[in-house]
């Protein structure tokens, strides 16, 4: 299993630049809408031809602009799960599933489609039409239709975005248990951070059409290396920063200087902390602790978001802080002390 992609595609709205290699496991493309994630899948599957570059899947050259190789989508053996499933509305479920293996002999075809219908829990729906099925069932049909062709690579394009929130979690579990048996490469496109974290092993963040360096997911969430990675992984507090000493960083937007036990690197531009990593504490002289005034409180289903104003520097940006409901005993305009634990502060 291997994936080697290095392509460029000039589009009217942006220039797509994708460059990565991948061996095994689920690879996620994470990015804002219109950042080129889906366009990358279209290039890999051959639906769109890149301007130049190379696409190699399992040592098979799909596309190489230098050697003038460009396999048609039909020849690439791709399993593509579309956002809206793209089932054929004029065919019943069994015809939808069998269409990709129509060149097989009849008995083989029947036994294979029977196997997939059972595996995906679609028994009894064979003669139904797509419009008669629920969103989840349609997704399973689309998955059966793609998997039955034994594709070399499976591309999942925001598979849950068309579903209601309460259905998503179940379907996500279902989808992942089905694809667990699949041995090829999987690329999973999403703009949902939590979904990406649960489903993927490695994640590539997209920034205006450019794919950033591939990251192991835990590493990505713990130590984002760029502004895009920090915002896309849900970091709310980001400040411009500059190094002021061997162990200190001054956060320009927060108006405080932070001290570290280890030496800080040169050329840093930003310092960040996630909203749930900030701690409220007593003024006991812990390092990186500063006074703040509660500026605004917003209630969420299971937690409060508190917006804090720097007590000593009125020009500083407001800091976002999350607290569980049972720990909440603050009100507007209270003065509190916030600790920014250095393990949770990250900079780049």
């Amino acid at each position, binding site marked *: 299993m291997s994936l080697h992609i290095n392509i460029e595609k000039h589009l009217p709205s942006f220039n797509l630049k994708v460059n990565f290699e991948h061996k095994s496991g689920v690879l996620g493309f994470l990015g804002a809408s219109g950042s080129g994630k889906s366009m990358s899948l279209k290039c890999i599957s051959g639906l769109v031809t890149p301007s130049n570059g190379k696409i190699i899947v399992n040592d098979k050259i799909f596309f190489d602009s230098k050697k003038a190789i460009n396999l048609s989508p039909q020849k690439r053996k791709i399993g*593509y799960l*579309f956002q*809206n499933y*793209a089932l054929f509305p004029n065919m019943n479920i069994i015809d939808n599933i069998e*269409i*990709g293996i129509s060149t097989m002999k009849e008995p083989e075809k029947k036994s294979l489609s029977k196997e997939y219908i059972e595996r995906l829990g679609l028994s009894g729906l064979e003669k139904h039409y*797509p419009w008669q099925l629920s969103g989840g069932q349609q997704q399973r049909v689309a998955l059966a*239709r793609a998997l039955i*062709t034994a594709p070399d690579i499976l591309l999942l394009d925001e598979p849950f975005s068309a579903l209601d929130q309460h259905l998503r979690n179940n379907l996500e579990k279902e989808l992942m248990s089905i694809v667990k048996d699949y041995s090829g490469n999987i690329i999973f496109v999403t703009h949902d951070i939590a979904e990406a974290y649960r489903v993927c092993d490695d994640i590539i963040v997209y920034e205006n059409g450019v794919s950033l360096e591939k990251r192991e997911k835990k590493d990505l969430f713990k130590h984002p290396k760029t502004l895009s990675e920090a915002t896309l992984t849900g970091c709310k507090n980001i400040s411009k920063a500059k190094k002021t000493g061997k162990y200190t960083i001054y956060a320009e937007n927060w108006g405080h200087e932070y001290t570290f036990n280890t030496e800080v690197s040169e050329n840093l531009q930003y310092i960040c902390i996630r909203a749930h990593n900030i701690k409220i504490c007593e003024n006991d002289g812990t390092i990186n602790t500063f006074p703040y005034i509660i500026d605004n409180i917003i209630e969420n289903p299971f937690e409060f978001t508190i917006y804090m104003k720097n007590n000593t520097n009125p020009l500083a940006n407001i800091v976002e802080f999350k607290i569980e409901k049972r720990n909440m005993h603050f009100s507007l305009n209270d003065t509190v002390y916030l600790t920014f634990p250095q393990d949770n502060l990250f900079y780049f």
Partner: protein
Amino acid sequence: MNIDFAPLWISIKTAMVATIITFFLGIIVSYWMSNFKGKSKGIIDGLFTLPLILPPTVVGFFLLLICGKNGLVGNILKLFNTSLIFTWSATVLAAIVVSFPMMYRTTRSAFEQIDINIISAARTLGLSEFKIFYKIAIPLAMPGIIGGLVLSFARAMGEFGATLMIAGNIPGRTQTMPLAIFFAAESGDMQKAMLWVIIIVTLSLFLILILNYWSEIQLKLMGRRTK
């Protein structure tokens, strides 16, 4: 009243043959155009639609230029010792040219409305382009195709100007119903003209009813599909 029903049969025969040709030609050309990405798309589209906009006499004039004695097609036909002008084939040709834009435009928009993801999915599943055309694109565009078919038939049957220019008004050979009405009224035989008018109105109404019935069925099907 002694009535010769030849114009009715000529009209129906002409419209049928013309519609069959327009039907296949229209589907193929509109599918090709709906996938065509070239720069000349606008010009080609304009050429195909032109007969719909131009006065039929102008269309007839062009056909006369092309198919007449000194025209390109006329010269080729001369090699085979035959000619097109003032024959029944000319009525069919006139009907094809004026009905083609109806078929072309309706069908093309039906093809263009198909969800591109469905076509993409078919491609990734390994279906050949031809199979995508007849197993997916045609069934999904069927409501538009049927609509185009009925409109083309109606237009072919109602053709007057271009027919008169290149096929003339030869009773029993090229005289279709619209021509019969014009020449009956011109010679003061209002009764005869009225009879043909009634026949045409009845036929047209019947066609519209079929069209409505079809689109109702298809709309129900589509509505369910997109639910």
